[in-house]
């Protein structure tokens, strides 16, 4: 029996109450979904948390599977749904906690050239930041690009650039005792 057909058979047995088959099916599903989620999320904790949520959803929705159609698209539809939900909540949280760049700039000197705190003076600290954040700060404060231009150049969304810059400012503020 090939692997694909095995999943349908396992689900049919699981629906009939076979606990062993159900455990095997969920194991196989987890094996299938882990790389799918890992490609879309960058934290392994988040992958495992979401995977568990998806397995619970599969358990809750198993009455909508009859064993007569391919199992994989059914499970993937649930996985995508939960992934989108997760991302929506995740980014909504970020937006809620995000501070406008203009607000953040208030804690930094208005004119870098007139201040004692220049990009060059804190370049060492900036280099210690995660690579993406350091690049963004360098482009904004050393090369004079706007957040939108940075976004275009490095292929990110403007909001993501702002969020990354905001995080970098917070780290620097903490380190520099602002």
């Amino acid at each position, binding site marked *: 029996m090939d692997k694909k057909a095995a999943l349908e058979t396992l689900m049919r047995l699981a629906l009939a109450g076979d606990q062993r088959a159900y455990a095997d099916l969920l194991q196989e599903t*987890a094996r299938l979904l882990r790389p799918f989620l890992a490609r879309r999320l960058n934290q392994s904790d988040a992958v495992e948390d979401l995977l568990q949520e998806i397995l619970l959803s599969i358990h809750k929705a198993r009455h909508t599977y009859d064993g007569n159609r391919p199992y994989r698209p059914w499970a993937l539809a649930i996985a995508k749904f939960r992934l989108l939900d997760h991302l929506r909540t995740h980014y909504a949280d970020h937006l809620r906690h995000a501070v406008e760049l203009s607000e953040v700039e208030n804690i930094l000197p208005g004119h870098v050239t007139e201040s004692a705190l220049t990009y060059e003076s804190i370049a060492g600290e900036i280099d210690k930041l995660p690579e993406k954040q350091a690049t963004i700060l360098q482009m904004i404060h050393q090369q004079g690009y706007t957040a939108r231009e940075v976004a275009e150049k490095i292929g990110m969304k403007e909001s993501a650039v702002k969020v990354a810059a905001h995080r970098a400012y917070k780290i620097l503020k903490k380190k520099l005792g602002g």
Partner: protein
Amino acid sequence: MGNTEELIKALAQDATPVKPVAHPFVQCAKWMAGGTVYVALSVMYLGLRPDVMTRLHSPMFVAELGLLGGIIVATILSAALLAFPDMHQKRGVAFAPVFAIMLFVLAIFLAWQADNPPSALPEHNVECFLCITSLALLPAAWLLYSMRKFASTHPYLAGGIALLCAFSIGALALRLSEQTDSMAHIVQWHYLPMIGVGIVGLWLGRVFLKW
């Protein structure tokens, strides 16, 4: 990783026999039967329009009713498929209401053109919308309640389609009982509100079809 293993063990222990829900076409047939009975009862309650036999000789009227019926069938079918996480792997069929609505809009446009000189406007206006909405309440509640037993991964769309279906049922019942032929009135107070109702349905879907 350990937690996932434990979760799988716990879920497997909970694996009692489960009866799969009916095929979407069977579900669709049930909802269709319910919708037909409801339209019939509503028309009986409101009274069949006295000129119905004459109007049934008008191809535009027949096309309008037929396509409104088509929207009901297409939305019921779509709702039945959207209730499944994977749309029962019949994605194309789930979008059938798009074609039904396009044809309906075309028929209404032609009927409006044919309503020349325009028929007299009735004295009432918003009452029609309120009547259709009242008639749609029960089918909407029934559809949303039935769909909750499934596991839709498109709750917004499913909610919108369910409400569109319920409103079409109400609109069909009223069209069969109200003796009005002014297309301006019918478009404005019978059919245009469908757009708003569909939007409300998107929100209701999010609220009621969450799982």
